């Protein structure tokens, strides 16, 4: 489904990502791990079109998409969350979800001004879908609050819900467990697995929480200082000497 070949990204003199390759199949959870500053987020930024990679190929469903603008990539069905949560803090929770469904709505201004049946119907559908996902992540009671007033863990869940209402095929999560307490992390664990099992979404996951990664990943890619270090099943990674030396050993 997603294939990344020899991706590299250079910032001036710094080669932040150097020859990273990975692939994601349908209904698969693939993790990217590596020490701080390894270049994980930069890989995400290249995949999501936020940066234009300086080398390599990104192929999504048979199409080369490297260099495609970010909003077009998201419309193809690849959406992401951010390492530092990015919500529309002054808008309400439900409005955050409506914004995300922009392209599913009738954005014809005349239709909106006149309130045509098709416009109303789609608007209602969007509200229903928003309600569904809020229920799913346990935020329905907070639907009309400002998103900025949510607790940190709730904001994280809202960000995932906001991705899900766009009906993505591939979800990219950048450290979704950062700052969560153990109970919340457990819920997150179940949520991610359910996204894959029940909604047929593939997930690319960046995470420092090893127990979460080892628990839910189908495959893991390790990168270190921008270079691919190892890749394989959690079991293989756990016993890989290089990885232990470079990453797990120091932790």
């Amino acid at each position: 489904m997603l294939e990344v070949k020899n991706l590299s990204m250079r910032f001036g003199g710094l080669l932040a990502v150097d020859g990273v390759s990975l692939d994601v199949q349908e209904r698969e959870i693939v993790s990217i791990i590596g020490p701080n500053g390894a270049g994980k987020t930069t890989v995400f930024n290249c995949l999501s079109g936020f940066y234009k990679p300086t080398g390599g190929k990104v192929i999504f469903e048979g199409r080369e998409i490297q260099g495609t603008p970010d909003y077009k990539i998201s419309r193809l069905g690849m959406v992401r969350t951010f390492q530092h949560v990015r919500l529309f803090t002054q808008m309400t929770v439900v409005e955050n979800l409506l914004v995300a469904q922009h392209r599913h709505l009738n954005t014809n201004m005349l239709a909106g001004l006149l309130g045509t049946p098709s416009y109303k119907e789609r608007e209602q559908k969007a509200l229903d879908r928003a309600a569904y996902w809020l229920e799913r992540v346990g935020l329905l009671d907070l639907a009309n609050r400002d998103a900025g007033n949510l607790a940190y863990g709730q904001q994280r869940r809202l960000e995932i819900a906001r991705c899900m209402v766009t009906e993505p095929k591939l979800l990219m999560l950048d450290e979704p467990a950062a700052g969560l307490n153990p109970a919340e992390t457990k819920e997150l664990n179940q949520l991610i697995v359910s996204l894959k099992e029940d909604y047929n979404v593939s997930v690319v996951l960046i995470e420092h929480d090893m127990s979460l990664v080892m628990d839910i990943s189908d495959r893991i890619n390790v990168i270190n200082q921008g270079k691919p270090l190892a890749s394989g099943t959690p079991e293989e990674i756990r016993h890989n000497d290089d990885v232990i030396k470079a990453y797990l050993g120091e932790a």
Partner: protein
Amino acid sequence: MAANNMRHALFCAIVTLIISFPILGLSLEAKGVNITLSGAKTSTYVAIVLAAVAVFVFQIFRDTFMGALGKLPNLNPLAGREPMEQTKRVKLESWLLTGIVVFALFWPFLVSRGSVDLATLVLIYIMLALGLNVVVGLAGLLDLGYVAFYAVGAYTFALLSQYTGISFWMALPIGALLAGLTGMILGFPVLRLRGDYLAIVTLGFGEIIRILLNNWTTLTGGPNGIGGIPEPTLFGMEFGRRVKEEGNTSFHETFGIAYSGEHKVIFLYLIALVLAVITALIIRRFMRMPVGRAWEALREDEIAARSLGLSRTAVKLSAFTIGAFFAGFAGTVFASKQGFISPESFVFLESAIILAIVVLGGMGSQLGVILAAIAVTILPELAREFSEYRMLIFGAAMVLMMVWRPQGLLPVRRIQITLNKQG
């Protein structure tokens, strides 16, 4: 810290001296063909020194002053009270707005012609401010050249009436559409810019349009402007003493009443009122539509918005175009009201005034914008003796606003979509 403060204060005082001495202290006088440089009166020099001292003192105690200013809201009886509940506020604001409109409908029949004329101007500013509010308040794009679109609307009507004899009602949509189109064309290249850069470039565009109007003498008449712009008609009835256009009838003859110059003024006022209400309603509606949410989302977090599939250019361009559209609307009404327009009506100061209304009113709030438009247009009329100091007072008011109530008189009343829990 203290030394630093001292140095800063000294620096500011010296800058004051350097700037004000040549401007106020020296004057050039033309004597025949020669120009002589002469000094000013001693009192002026004393004033300059006093000003420098005042700046010095202020800068030294700056923190104390600003701290005190920051505490001012405590004087406000409403401060500290729980903010009103969302639904209640929405209701209250709708009631207030309706009340204002109903009052505004009957009001012109009770007052003098001059007041009605001024009120028409207020309504035009309300339209402009509501339109600019979309661009600045909702989409967060600082546009300092907004007056350009106002000019496009006004000149469209003026030129079309001069060359084709078009009527007000035909010109209204054409002017608005052309202004919107201009907004789209100008917006396209500049919307990649952010913040300050966007402000500067739009400022430049505003000036370019004005200078173009000023210099394209063959078409626009240059600084002489264009006159003879017709007034609106009511179903083919004219409001003048005599009918100008063939086929039209005149209002006072049709109804068999005596001719009065007031009919025309009141009619124009009512048109402006209706258009202002329409503008407010349409923009209110936009705010609940996907496009309105997209404006806000992009303003709040552009990166997140794009990651969700919103195209920055499309969304910003729509805000820019819609804002320009309503400026064109207002421009057409303005041209019709004045009967004569020249580039002088579309200087940067106008953009600044409209922006001031938006900022004063509280960005995003319609009721606030309406009240601010009334204040900004009427107060200078009431205080005519101080008209020389108008800009000074204006500037001071803006600075105080920024310190005291950066959110505006009536802070943003967002129109929200609420989710009614179905179960």
